[in-house]
């Protein structure tokens, strides 16, 4: 018995982990790298559900429950910072009342905080905040959690195939799925036989569905986020207002991420943000963080929410954050094929549970979900355990040669998400070639050069999208060093 899962985002890996724990063989097929999709381009917020309490109570409730579970099973990759909902001056207090009622109704933990305490804890906030509530928000280290899931899946005998795209689905005459056609980066095609198929392709889910049935209506929504160099707040800060653009600041690692926006799109590829998008996002911070334009900005990035809505009249902010499981047999498609769409990072486990429940029913077996109680195996190598007299290749993020060596198979792009190198203020200016050098012995120089250049372009785009203050100067310095010192001249 084998199930193929399309997509190695939070949802796909969550599903594969769930299947593995139920004793079912699984192969995950991912067209890019882990964290290359939306799951590596999100805000990092472990929602308490509070954000959706008024408009989307079902999603709110699910977030709250899953938040509690993730703190248990993903301990180490969740930072329990807590969060505040703060009401800026001159905002509509009627919403606050509505929100408090909804929170009470849903039973989401909440406590009103004195403004004195708030000012002490979050001195960066606007002095004229009128009201504040503490909620159990937290921060997800998304990269790490994804790697833990992958490790767990492989420990259970499952397979995760990266840089391999599902390009076809084979259905037997009786209408059951029989296998998938996959294509590797190098262009080779092969078949993987399976008894069930779960489509967790995020924003591409509808594209994947076309391989075996009708596409389904998705409401893709693009969001932009700004990264600042310091940890400006100790807890998540949310604007107490109906969900809108530019209303959450998440402290993450040593940085802070401000977001986000919500714009309907038809393109599952996020594409780099424009400087206009970044400036607009920044301008929305005034009533919460009046000094934000002076903070040291690092870069901007974007992601695409794989939302789903059968009705088509709403704008994407009003589309539910709840998820949907589609049984394709019920829509005239093949048997034993299930798609999962919508949802949040925080609810990936619940989405996986429901999707796998549907799948095991199709496969005619009984096996109950175990993910709620099983700890995700922690990664062997911990950043903190490494020796202290080491020489850092990446000085901003303190990444040593030993850490890089711990990922012998990873490409430079993969090393970035695994070690955090090149994510600090210099954005790879002084470390990329050093990290690349550690790969010289086995790699050929052409491949290495092209990996270096593609990471440079990726970093450069993010910096250029937030080109102001010291970041503008760093960008110019980086450009000079790349061309005048390293001779990385690209013809335009």
């Amino acid at each position, binding site marked *: 018995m084998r199930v193929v899962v399309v997509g190695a985002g939070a949802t796909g890996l969550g599903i594969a982990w769930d299947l593995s724990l139920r004793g079912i063989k699984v192969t995950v097929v991912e067209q890019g790298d882990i964290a290359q999709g939306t799951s590596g381009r999100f805000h990092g917020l472990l929602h308490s559900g509070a954000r959706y309490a008024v408009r989307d109570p079902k999603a709110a409730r699910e977030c709250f429950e899953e938040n509690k579970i993730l703190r248990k099973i993903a301990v180490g990759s969740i930072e329990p910072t807590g969060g505040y909902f703060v009401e800026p001056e001159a905002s509509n207090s009627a919403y606050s009342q509505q929100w408090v009622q909804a929170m009470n109704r849903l039973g989401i933990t909440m406590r009103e905080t004195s403004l004195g305490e708030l000012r002490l804890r979050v001195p960066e906030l606007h002095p004229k905040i009128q009201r504040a509530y503490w909620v159990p928000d937290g921060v997800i280290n998304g990269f790490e959690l994804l790697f833990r899931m992958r490790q767990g899946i492989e420990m259970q005998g499952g397979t995760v195939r990266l840089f391999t795209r599902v390009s076809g689905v084979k259905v037997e005459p009786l209408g059951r799925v029989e296998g998938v056609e996959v294509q590797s980066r190098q262009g080779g095609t092969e078949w993987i036989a399976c008894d069930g198929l779960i489509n967790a392709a995020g924003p591409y889910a509808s594209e994947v569905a076309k391989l075996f049935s009708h596409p389904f209506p998705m409401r893709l929504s693009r969001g932009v986020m700004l990264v600042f160099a310091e940890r400006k707040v100790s807890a998540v800060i949310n604007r107490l207002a109906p969900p809108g653009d530019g209303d959450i600041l998440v402290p993450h690692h040593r940085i802070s991420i401000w977001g986000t926006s919500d714009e309907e799109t038809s393109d599952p590829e996020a594409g780099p943000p424009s400087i206009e998008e970044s400036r607009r996002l920044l301008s929305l911070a005034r009533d919460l963080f009046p000094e934000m334009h002076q903070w040291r900005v690092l870069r901007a990035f974007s992601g695409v929410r794989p939302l789903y809505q059968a009705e088509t009249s709403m704008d994407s902010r009003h589309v539910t954050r709840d998820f949907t499981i589609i049984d394709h047999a019920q829509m005239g498609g093949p048997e034993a094929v299930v798609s999962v769409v919508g949802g949040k990072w925080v609810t990936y486990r619940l989405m996986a549970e429901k999707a796998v429940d549907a799948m095991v029913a199709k496969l005619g077996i009984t096996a109950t979900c175990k993910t709620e109680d099983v700890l995700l195996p922690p990664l062997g190598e911990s950043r903190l355990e490494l020796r202290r007299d080491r020489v850092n290749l990446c000085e901003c993020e303190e990444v040593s040669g030993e850490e890089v060596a711990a990922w012998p198979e990873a490409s430079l792009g993969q090393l970035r998400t695994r070690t955090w190198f090149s994510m600090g203020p210099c954005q790879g200016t002084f470390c990329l070639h050093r990290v690349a050098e550690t790969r010289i012995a086995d790699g050929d120089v052409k491949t290495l050069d092209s990996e270096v250049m593609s990471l440079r372009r990726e970093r450069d785009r993010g910096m250029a999208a937030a080109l102001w203050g010291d970041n503008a100067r760093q960008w110019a310095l980086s450009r000079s060093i790349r061309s*005048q010192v390293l001779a990385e001249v690209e013809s335009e």
Partner: protein
Amino acid sequence: MRHVVIVGQGPSGLLAADWLSALGAAVTIVAASEGSLALWSGSFDFRNYDQDGSMVTDPWQWWAEPSHRTFAQAWELSDWKRWWTALLRSFKDIGLIVDLTLPRENRWIVAPTGRLRPTFWCPPWQWTLSSSEPNEPVTLVDVGSLLDTPINWLKARTRNESAWLTETVALRRPDAWRRHWSGLAWAAFLDQPAGADWLITESIQAREHMRLSGALVFPQVLGVATTERLIQRISDAVDRPVFEYALMPPAVGGIRIRERWRKSLKSRGVLFRPGHVVEVTDSGVRLGESAGRIAADEVVIATGGMVGGGLALNHEGILTNTATGERGFFSGELNALTSVGVGNRRSHGYVVGRMVGGSDPDRHGDGGAMNVWSVATAVQAIMGERAVNSWLSTREEGPG
């Protein structure tokens, strides 16, 4: 005596100070911080890349074509010749070992990842190649665990190019060595007599393992103050030419030039003052944080553009000249706001170096030419063409 305030102590500020003081002006340099010489090895570029990114071999020929000239429109090759020679003379005066013959073509240097890059003039310690497809045999020295050395890159790049013979010899580490030693820490060690002695002993040892008979090339760590002496000693000991390849910033090569230049300028009466200029007026400059004013007859703005801190870009897209306070809107071109007042003094002084519009050293490799041309133009405008011409001709004729 005319008093000129120069804002900025990068290569263009130092060059302006050098030539202006030589012509008899009283010069004060005001700078907020370091200039860019500490970031690069001191090779002066003329024109390295064509518009389409291909390498330029003969920059003289390139500049001879009028349609090519992005700046220096009015300059003939004879102007370039005179002023490049003046630059080399200045380098000679500050104590570098300089051959006053101008290069006829670009040469190639090796970047820290083993890529080759053309350049026009190099300091004497710099290892250069006469072509982008080198075939001169070379022995590279590995001092071990020094970040940013191109040894491994070069080995990999030349693996399949049998035409280029390279070999590596490793030195045993000195007792004083620590894991975190950067290029600068190495240079400080080698400036000490004990460090120099260790180096000579080790080089003689290493000689046993050298199979090739070309140059011996070290990473750029051979001291800051004693470089030439060290190079001579090693060369005598191993009986072959000794050079260095440049590393990443901080760049020991650029720092050597900066140190000697500052020392020489100070000895000639040039004053160095720390300070952040926030306004330039007809009567001089005003410093930020109420640090007062400095009166001047003329002001030269050598503030380095975006990299040097002479330009600042804010979140609304407003570009500010940090020294004059002028503002403009950022059009996506970093050169915007910079081409004010080259040569002809406008309300805000003479602009030189990276602040000058019309050049893009990153894409074209014309940074050195930009410095030479813009400083020469400002010097001519300030001191008068007659005085400058007679000064230049004495420099050309005078003993070397």
